C-alpha cells in the first residue's frame, strides 16, 4: 500500500486527521506528566550538592530543549512554506510560535528560580541566558509581525523570512556553555558521554521531556485546526464540518 503524504498537505484532509491525533497526544502528555512529576518530586532522592532545589530540573530542561526544538521545527515549516508556497506549512509554523514562546518563558522563569538558591541570583547577563532571552524576543517578534500584516499570505512570507533568519540563534544557545565562560553549567546529557546524573533523575527528566513534547504537539494541532477555520472560512469544506453546522 502506498501512502500519499501530499494528500495531507491540504487543510481539508489534514483537519480531520489532526482531530483524530489530538486525543492520543493529549492523553499521553497527561499520563507522562503525572508519572514524571511523581518521580521528580517524590521518588527521586535529594541531591547531595544542591539539596532539593535541583528538582526544578524536571521542568526546566524539558522546557528549554523544547523551546529550541520547536523553533527549528517552526523554521522548517516556514522554509517549506516559502519554498513550495503551501498553505498547511505556513499554518503549522503559525501554530507552533505561541507554544514555543511559552516554553521559552517557562525555561527562563524556572531557570531564575533555580539560579537564586544555587548561584545567588535570579538573573545574570550570561551567554546562555541572554541568548535564550533573545529566543523569546524572536518568538514574540514573529507573533507580533503576523498581527501587523492583514493579508495572511503576505504575513506567512514575512514571518517565514524572520523565522529563518532567527535560526542563527539556536546554535548560539546550544553551544553558549562551551564557547563562553558562563555561569550556567555545561550540559549534563551528551551524545558522546554517559550522563552525569543518577538514573532515576535522568528517567524522570526524559519522561517529562516526552510529556512536554506530546503536550506541544497536541496544542499545536488544536491551534492549527483553529487557524484553518479562521483562514479558510467561507470554503465549502469548513461549512460542512460537523462542529460548524451544529451550533
Amino acid at each position, binding site marked *: 500500500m502506498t501512502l500519499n503524504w501530499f494528500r495531507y498537505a491540504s487543510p481539508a484532509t489534514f483537519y480531520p486527521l489532526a482531530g483524530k491525533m489530538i486525543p492520543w497526544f493529549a492523553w499521553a502528555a497527561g499520563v507522562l506528566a503525572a508519572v514524571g*512529576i511523581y518521580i521528580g518530586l517524590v521518588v527521586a532522592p535529594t541531591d547531595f550538592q544542591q539539596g532539593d532545589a535541583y528538582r526544578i530540573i524536571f521542568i526546566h530542561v524539558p522546557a528549554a530543549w523544547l523551546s529550541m526544538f520547536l523553533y527549528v521545527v517552526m523554521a522548517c515549516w516556514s522554509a517549506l512554506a516559502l519554498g513550495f508556497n503551501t498553505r498547511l506549512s505556513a499554518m503549522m509554523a503559525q501554530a507552533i510560535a505561541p507554544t514555543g514562546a511559552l516554553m521559552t518563558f517557562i525555561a527562563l522563569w524556572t531557570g531564575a528560580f533555580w539560579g537564586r538558591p544555587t548561584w545567588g541570583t535570579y538573573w545574570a547577563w550570561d551567554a546562555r541566558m541572554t541568548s535564550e532571552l533573545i529566543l523569546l524576543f524572536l518568538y514574540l517578534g514573529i507573533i507580533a509581525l503576523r498581527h501587523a500584516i492583514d493579508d495572511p499570505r503576505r504575513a506567512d512570507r514575512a514571518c517565514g523570512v524572520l523565522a529563518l533568519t532567527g535560526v542563527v540563534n539556536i546554535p548560539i544557545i546550544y553551544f553558549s556553555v562551551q564557547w563562553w565562560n558562563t555561569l550556567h553549567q555545561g550540559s549534563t546529557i551528551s551524545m558522546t558521554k554517559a550522563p552525569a546524573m543518577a538514573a532515576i533523575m535522568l528517567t524522570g527528566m526524559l519522561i517529562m521531556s516526552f510529556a512536554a513534547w506530546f503536550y506541544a504537539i497536541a496544542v499545536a494541532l488544536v491551534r492549527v485546526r*483553529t487557524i484553518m477555520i479562521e483562514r479558510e472560512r467561507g470554503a465549502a469544506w469548513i461549512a460542512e464540518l460537523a462542529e460548524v453546522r451544529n451550533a
Partner: protein
Amino acid sequence: MSTFFAMNGYGFYIWCAYGAAALALVVELLVLRSRRRSVLAEARLTGPDSATVPAGVTR
C-alpha cells in the same frame, strides 16, 4: 505533608517554578479554547461563500 511542601527549605523556589509553569499551560489552554469557540462562531455566521472553490482544491 508539610515537610514535603517545605522541600528542605527550597519550597519557595520549587513551588514558584512548578506553579508558574502549570499556570502558564492552563492559561494557554484557556486562551486556545476561547479562540476556537469564537472562530467557530464566526464560521457559522459566514457560511459557505458563493464564489468559493470546492473542498479539497488548493488555492
